[in-house]
């Protein structure tokens, strides 16, 4: 009798097995190599920390490298959607590739969470962007904080040195109207390439305009070069950088020339210095601990946090979606999209998110802090602005 029961139970599990074992599949396409590798590598590292079970369902992460290449990114996304039949896609690390993925996501009707910064990825909201969400802060949010800080510090004119690509373009177009609104003059706008070995020409031009402050719109360690050159030439005004520089390598390469620089950043960067009352503090510290335990102390970059935040959003949306449909079906993907759009007051490492049908970033002031560099470390200036 016992045997029969056991056999029946066994048969039961075998039969029920395939239904239970259907995991939720999440495709990730990021820039592990290529020019944006410094963004993609911490993101790829972060994926290895993500849970393999959400809401009682197994979750399978499929990570592909798009080499910061648009064509490759689109091919990856198509493969993930059609071959692997993923329930959501996370990626890519940079704006140009993410913009191209919008098309694929809308066509395959798969929710997409981008890890790139530009607000163009989710605005203006249309039929295609319905499927697209974004983890990082909009440049506009950060540009506003910089303009406000400059106005408070009594800056009257600003010199701009930015990347000669979409990053620099984006910042220039976001920051110009906000500076004008505060009555701050843009005295010089100079551009340089990430690969440049000398920016003496640009720096001399900016210094000839005698601005009170210089805003350097670059990301990662290449943003240190103009500041070093400015220091070398004896520029004594204020220095501003963007949140694109928030990693340890920037501090290492820039060294003492970076002292006193002011920049806006996600709260993750200075999680430990946030007041206890800040809701972000705990989530951000948990992530920092997990990351640094695996990849070494001081290895954290805020870019990896965006990958983690994508998972936080999914983890909050998946249980809702599971109520209406089974993973691997078009119904589930649609339900997941609706669930992400319905997220309210969800705390992740870079702020608190409340999505609406027109706002697929869903952040407010809690998603940015002003930070300065003191003794080679990030130091929190104020929790908002």
């Amino acid at each position, binding site marked *: 009798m016992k045997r029969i029961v056991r056999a029946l139970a066994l048969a039961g599990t075998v039969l029920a097995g395939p239904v239970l074992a259907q995991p939720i599949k999440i495709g990730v396409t990021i820039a592990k190599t290529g020019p944006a590798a410094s963004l993609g*590598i911490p993101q790829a590292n972060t994926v290895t920390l993500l849970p393999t079970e959400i809401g009682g369902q197994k979750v399978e992460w499929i990570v592909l490298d798009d080499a910061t290449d648009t064509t490759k990114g689109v091919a990856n996304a198509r493969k993930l959607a059609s071959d692997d039949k993923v329930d959501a896609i996370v990626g890519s690390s940079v704006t140009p590739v993410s913009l191209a993925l919008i098309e694929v996501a809308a066509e395959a009707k798969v929710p997409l969470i981008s890890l790139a910064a530009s607000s163009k990825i989710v605005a203006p909201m249309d039929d295609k962007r319905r499927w697209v969400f974004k983890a990082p802060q909009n440049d506009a949010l950060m540009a506003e904080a910089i303009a406000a800080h400059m106005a408070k510090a009594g800056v009257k004119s600003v010199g701009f040195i930015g990347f*000669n690509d979409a990053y620099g373009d984006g910042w220039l177009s976001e920051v110009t109207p906000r500076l004008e609104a505060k009555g701050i003059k843009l005295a010089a706008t100079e551009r340089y390439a990430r690969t440049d070995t*000398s920016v003496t*020409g640009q720096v001399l031009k900016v210094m000839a305009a005698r601005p009170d402050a210089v805003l350097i719109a670059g990301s990662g360690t290449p943003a240190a070069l103009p500041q070093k050159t400015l220091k070398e030439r004896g520029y004594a005004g204020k220095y501003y950088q963007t949140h694109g520089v928030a990693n340890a390598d920037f501090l290492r390469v820039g060294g003492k020339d970076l002292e006193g620089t002011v920049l806006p950043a996600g709260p993750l960067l200075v999680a430990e210095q946030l007041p206890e009352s800040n809701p972000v503090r705990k989530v951000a510290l948990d992530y920092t601990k997990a990351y640094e335990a695996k990849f070494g102390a001081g290895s954290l970059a805020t870019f990896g946090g965006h990958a983690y935040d994508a998972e936080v959003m999914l983890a909050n949306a998946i249980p809702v979606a599971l109520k209406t449909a089974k993973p691997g079906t078009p119904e589930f993907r649609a339900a997941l999209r609706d669930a992400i759009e319905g997220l309210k007051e969800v705390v992740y490492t870079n702020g608190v998110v409340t999505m609406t049908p027109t706002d697929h970033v869903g952040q407010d002031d809690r998603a940015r802090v002003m930070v300065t560099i003191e003794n080679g470390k990030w130091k929190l200036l104020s929790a908002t602005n």
Partner: protein
Amino acid sequence: MDATILLLLLQDGVVNGAIYALIALSLVLVFTVTRVILIPQGEFVAYGALTLASLEAGTLPGTVPLLLGLGGLAFLADCAEARHTLDGRTLLRLGARDLALPAVVALAAWLLAPMKPGLVVEILLTLAIVTPMGGFLHAVAFRPLAHASVLVLLIASVGVHLALTGLGLVFFGAEGSRTPPLSDASFPAGPLLVSGQSLWMIGLTLAIIVALWLFFSRTLLGKALIATAVNRLGARLMGIAPSLAGRLSFSVAAFIGALSGVLIAPLTTVYYDTGFLIGLKGFVAAIIGGLASYPAAAAAAILVGIIESVASFEASAFKEVIVFMAIIPVLLWRSLRSAPIEDEE
């Protein structure tokens, strides 16, 4: 733009131009001897700078295992090349050159790196790690194709460049590094401040030009290299081994590349892929020099540096366009002046 700014721009242009000149010289050297357009030259620069930065930080640079690996591959390639005359002595000689030498360098790096032995030792170690790679790469990737057309050699060159860039990312990561300057001294000269580092760069560039010129005009080995370049078969009949000539030129190129890397690393942040653009600008200079003349290439490199620096002041958004457009009038002039060559061989 006033006179002071112009002077500052000229100074910046000349210092950058000195690096382009070193690259242009090695491109001319390798091309005249082997007909290879050495695109990976830029990678030697990046490897030199980043290897030095790793040693500065007290870690064993990733180029050390690469050196051992390349040595092993070169040993196999050398044995295959010499398979008809392979005896104990040849085997010993090849083993000493391809296996023992890199092993000694690797051992030295492994022992010395954690001790942070000071800038001079670290620079010597960097040169010892990167220089042999040139010869090994020649044996592995280019010697088997020695008789192929310039186009095939160029394709192989692109392949080696891509492989080395990828390995650079693995070894050194995506973010770049800087090293402390060779000399902290600086001298006021009118409105300019001349740094010791820039004097080192210009001085070493001049020294290498003179050394190459002496080598090719005064020494037997140098003349043998030129003979190989002019006529491989003829040189062979005179008892000059073309593979030796190729190996030598590649090693010298790798040495100059590593030296450029050591010189440029304190001035700017060097990334795993920085070498390519520096190499490309050196290539523009080498083309202006007709891929044949050292002094013309060096002068053109200084000109490229100055164009770049003035362009970055006047129209920073179009700087790269202006620098690379400089090659077009030169190519036009060269193609109008020279008679068409039907067959390159």
